[in-house]
C-alpha cells in the first residue's frame, strides 16, 4: 500500500482528534508520561506501542496521559520526572556503565517503576539473558520472582486472571519488590508489541496464539499496570475486597 501525502495528513489529524483530550494545564507533571530507556542497543523496538497504551489508558480510565513517549538515557536527570520507564529490545541490551546502573538503582529506590519488556518474546533469548544480568546489577539485593496471581496488579482496574502479551512465551511475569511495592516488572511476552498500531490505526503485529481476545487482555494488563504504578495497592484496601471477591466468583 502506498501512502500519499494527503492520506498521511488525514491520518495524523484523525489520530490527533481521536486522542481523549482534556484540559492540559500542568504539563507532564500531573500526567502519566511513559519514558523509554535509551540504551546502546535497539532500545525502541515498538515505537507505536507505548503511545497506543497511553491512548488506551486515557480512553478507558480517569488517568490523564501524554501521547508523547520520552526517550531518556539512564543517566539523564530528566528521568526522575517520569517515574514510569520501559526497558525494551528484541536483542541483547549492551552493558551499561556503572553510573547508569547507579542512576537506575536510585530511580527505583526512590519510587520509580521499570517495565522490562522482551520484544523478542524468546524465552532464554539474548534480551532476557542481558536484562537479567542488568537487573542483577541494578538491584543486587533483589531477585526477579514470579508475580502471584493474587497480586494487586491483576485487579488494579480490570479483574484479570493472568498476564499475556503479543505472545505467550511464559504464563507469568516476574517482578522485583523494592520497599513493599513492585518496582520492576519483567514481561517475557512482548507486552508493548500487543499495543502497537500504525498511523492508520491497524495493529502492527499479530497476537499469538489467542488473537484479538489476547490483545484485549494485553491492553487490560497494560491499563492495570499504569493504574498500579499510580495507585499502588489501593485495590487491596479493605473497602474493595468484598466487591472484588464477589465479582471474582461470577
Amino acid at each position, binding site marked *: 500500500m502506498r501512502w500519499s501525502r494527503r492520506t498521511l495528513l488525514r491520518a495524523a489529524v484523525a489520530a490527533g482528534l481521536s486522542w481523549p483530550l482534556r484540559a492540559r*494545564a500542568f504539563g507532564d507533571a500531573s500526567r502519566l508520561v511513559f519514558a523509554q530507556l535509551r540504551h546502546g542497543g535497539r532500545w525502541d523496538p515498538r515505537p507505536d506501542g507505548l503511545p497506543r497504551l497511553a491512548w488506551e489508558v486515557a480512553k478507558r480510565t480517569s488517568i490523564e496521559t501524554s501521547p508523547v513517549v520520552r526517550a531518556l538515557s539512564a543517566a539523564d536527570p530528566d528521568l526522575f520526572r517520569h517515574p514510569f520507564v520501559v526497558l525494551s529490545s528484541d536483542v541483547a541490551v549492551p552493558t551499561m556503565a556503572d553510573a547508569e546502573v547507579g542512576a537506575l538503582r536510585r530511580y527505583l529506590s526512590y519510587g520509580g517503576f521499570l517495565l522490562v519488556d522482551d520484544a523478542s518474546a524468546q524465552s532464554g533469548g539474548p534480551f532476557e539473558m542481558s536484562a537479567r544480568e542488568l537487573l542483577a546489577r541494578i538491584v543486587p539485593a533483589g531477585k526477579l520472582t514470579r508475580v502471584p496471581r493474587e497480586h494487586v496488579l491483576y485487579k488494579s482496574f480490570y479483574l484479570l486472571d493472568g498476564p499475556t502479551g503479543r505472545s505467550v512465551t511464559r504464563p507469568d511475569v516476574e517482578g522485583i519488590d523494592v520497599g513493599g511495592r513492585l518496582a520492576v516488572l519483567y514481561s517475557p511476552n512482548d507486552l508493548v508489541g500487543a499495543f502497537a498500531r500504525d498511523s492508520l490505526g491497524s495493529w502492527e503485529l499479530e497476537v499469538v496464539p489467542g488473537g484479538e481476545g489476547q490483545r484485549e487482555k494485553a491492553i487490560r494488563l497494560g491499563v492495570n499496570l499504569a493504574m498500579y504504578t499510580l495507585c499502588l495497592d489501593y485495590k487491596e484496601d479493605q473497602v474493595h475486597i468484598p466487591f*472484588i471477591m464477589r465479582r471474582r466468583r461470577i
Partner: protein
Amino acid sequence: MDGTSYNAWRLTSLSTLPGWALALAAVLLCAAIWLSFRGIRAEPSAARRRILVALRVAAGALLLVLLLEPGIELRAESRVRARIAILLDTSRSMRFPAAPNGPSRAEAMLSWLKSRLPDLSALASRFEIDVYGFDKELQPQDPDKLAAAVGQAAELAQGPSTDIVGALSSAAAAGTGGRPLAGLLVASDGADNAELVEGMTPQATAELQKLNAPVFALPVGAQALKDLAIDKVVVDDFAFVRNQVTVDVTVSARGFSSTDVPLVVKREGQIVAQKTVRVGGGTQRAEAKLSFVPDRTGKFAFQVAAPVYEGEALAQNNSRSFVLKVIRDRVRVVLVVGRPSWDVRFLRQLLKRDPNVDLISFFILRTPGDDTRSSQDELSLIPFPTQEIFQEQLKTFDLVIFQDFGNRPWYHLSQYLDGIASYVREGGALAVIGGEQAFAASDFGGTAIDSVLPVGLGVSGQPVEETPAQVRLTEAGRRHPVTELVPGLTANENAWARLPQLPGLNAVGPVKDNAQTLLTAQDGRPVLVVGEVGRGRTMALTTDASWYWSFVAAGQEIGPRAYETFWHGAIRWLVRDPALTPMRVAAEKTAFDPAAEPPVLDVQVRGSDYGAAAGAQLRAQVSSADDASPRAAGQAVAAADGTARITLPHLPPGSYKAVVTAKRPDGGDVGEAEEAFIVQPSGAELLQPAPRPDVLRAIADVTRGKVLDESDRLDTLPFRDPERVEVGQRKSRPLWDRWGVLAALCCIVGAEWTLRRRWGYA
C-alpha cells in the same frame, strides 16, 4: 505484831523439792503399799488384812505429807474494776448533717454525749470509763469538756479518715493497770474508709473477736437513712479518640424503695452517656457501665451524676467528676482523589508507610466519559461511597484530603457539603491539593466548602497557571511548623530554595482574613495557605506536583526528606498535634482539693509565628459541668519567655473547663487554649461520707454487742463484769512441823509392826 488483816487463805506446799521429785515419791509410796498388800493376800482373816493395809496406807499418807511440807497462805485480797472504752468519731465526715437541714453529725453526737453524762456517772461507780476521739488514730478525750462544746463540734471533726476496727483494737489495748475490758461503745456515722470500706471482712471479724468484749454502737446520722451516692467511678486515665470508653459506676442507695435511677455522664454540660439502674427494695448497691465515644482529642472533665431525690441526707455525693485525656492512636485520614496521578501515588505511599496514619482512600478511577470496553463485572471498581465517607464516617476522620478533586455533578455531593463544612468548624481538618480539577476548577465555589477554605475559589482568568514556580517562604512561613523542613531560619530557607521548581500552580482567589500564606511562588502566587475555621484547620496547596519535592529532588541528589518532612508537619498541624500548638495551658494538678490551695494554671503562649508572645494579656474563664456559661476567673501577663501562671479563685467541688485567651498589648488576638480539671476533696473521707449504720450493726453482731438508740440508757447496758482479784499482802505458815504428825506416824508404824509380829508375820 503483824497488823495486816488477811481476808483469805489457801493451802500450799512449802517443800523445796521439785515437783517431779514429789511425784516420784508419791508413785513409790503407792507401789510400796500395793506390794505390801500382795504380801498378805494369803491371810485367811479379812479383818486382819484390812487392818494391816489401812495402817500401811495411813503411814504412807503421813510420809507424803512430810515430804510435801504443807502450809497455809494467808492473803489480803481486793477486787479490780473493769473498764469501758467510749469511742467518739472525730473524722471529717462527721461535719455532714445528721439529718436533712439538721445539725452536723458531730453536733448530734456531742448532744447525745451530753444527755448521757448521768449514765456515765452511774457507770463510773462500777467501771473505769475511758473516753476517746478517733478517726485514723485514737486520742483521749474529756467527756465533760466535749459535752460542753456542742457548739464547736465542727472543730472536733477534723480527722482525715475513719478506721473503726483499728480504733476499737487500739482502745482495747490502751487500758491501764491491766483492767479487764467490760465493753466498748462507739458513736460514729459508720463511714469507714479503712478495713470496713467494703463491709465486714473475715480479717475484720477476726480482729473484732480478739477484743473479747461487746461493742455497743450508736449510729450517728442514721436518722437520715435516705441517701443515694455515686460510690465509685472507675475509668482509665486516657482513651483513644473515636474508641469507646466505658465508665464503671457503683451506686449505693439507702432508704429507697425500688427506684430506677437515671445516671448520666456529662462533658461540659452535655450528656454523652446515660443509663438507668434500679436500686432500693433490698438492693443497696448497683453497678452500671456507661459508654461513650469521644469525638475529639484533648483533656476533658467529665461528671457522673444521679438526680438528687427529696429527703436525701447528702446531695454532694450524687455526682463524681473525673478527667479523661483523649488521645489518638493513629491519625485517621481519608484521601479523596479526583484522578490517579503521580502526586496521588507519592502521597499515598507516604501515608501508607506512616505507622501513625490510618489511611482510608477513595480514588475516582473512571468518569462517565471513559469507555472501559468491558462489563462492570470485569472491573474492580466500586461505587463512590459518598454517604459513608461524607456522612456516616465523616466525624471519625481527623483529616479529609481532597486531591485534584472537584464537585462533579455525577458524584452527587451537594447534600454533604454543609456537613463537611460543619465537620471542619467543629474541629476537623480539610486539606485541598491542587490539580486540574481543583480550586477554581472544582465547582466548589460558593458552596459551604468554599466558606471554610483559607483561599477564595473564584478567579477571573484561567484556573491553572503554567508558569513554573520556585517556592519561597513568607514571613509567616519562616516560623510556622508546617514549613519547617530543618531547624534554623536560614537553613530552612535554603532547604526550600533548593527544591525543584513546580511546573505550574492553581489560580486561587484572595487569601482569607483568618488564613496565613506560608509559601508563595517567586511572583507572589500563593502556594501554601493555612487557616483556622471554628475549631478546625484547613490547608490549600495549589500544586499537584509536590511529588517533585520527593522524586525529582531525589534525582537532583537532594533526596525525598523535604517532601516527607513537609507532609508530616502539615498533617500534625492540621490535626492539632499538641506539640505544634502555639498556646498551651496546663493545670498544676488534675484534681484540686477545695480545702487546699486554689487551682493554678500554667500557660505558655506563642504567637502565630510560633515565637514567645511576651507581654500577652491572658484572661482565664471557667465553666463547670453544671454551668456551661464561662465566667472570668483570673488574668496574668506573659513573661518574656511567653509563660505565665494564673491562680484561679477557690472553686466548689465539680468538673471545670478553663479557657485562656491571649491578646497582644494592642488588643490583637494571639490565641486561645483550654484545659480541664476537677475540684474534689482528696481522700475517701469526704468522697464517701454517707452514714453506714450497717457497718456498725455488723460490728455489734460480731462482738455480741448491740446497736443503740439515742434514748438507750448506758448504765443498763449488759457490759461484761469479769472478776478480777488483786492480792495486796500474803503470808505462809507451815503445817508439817507440828509434833502430832510425827507422833501419829510413829504410832501407826509401831502398831502395824506389833500386829504383824503377833499374827505371825516376819
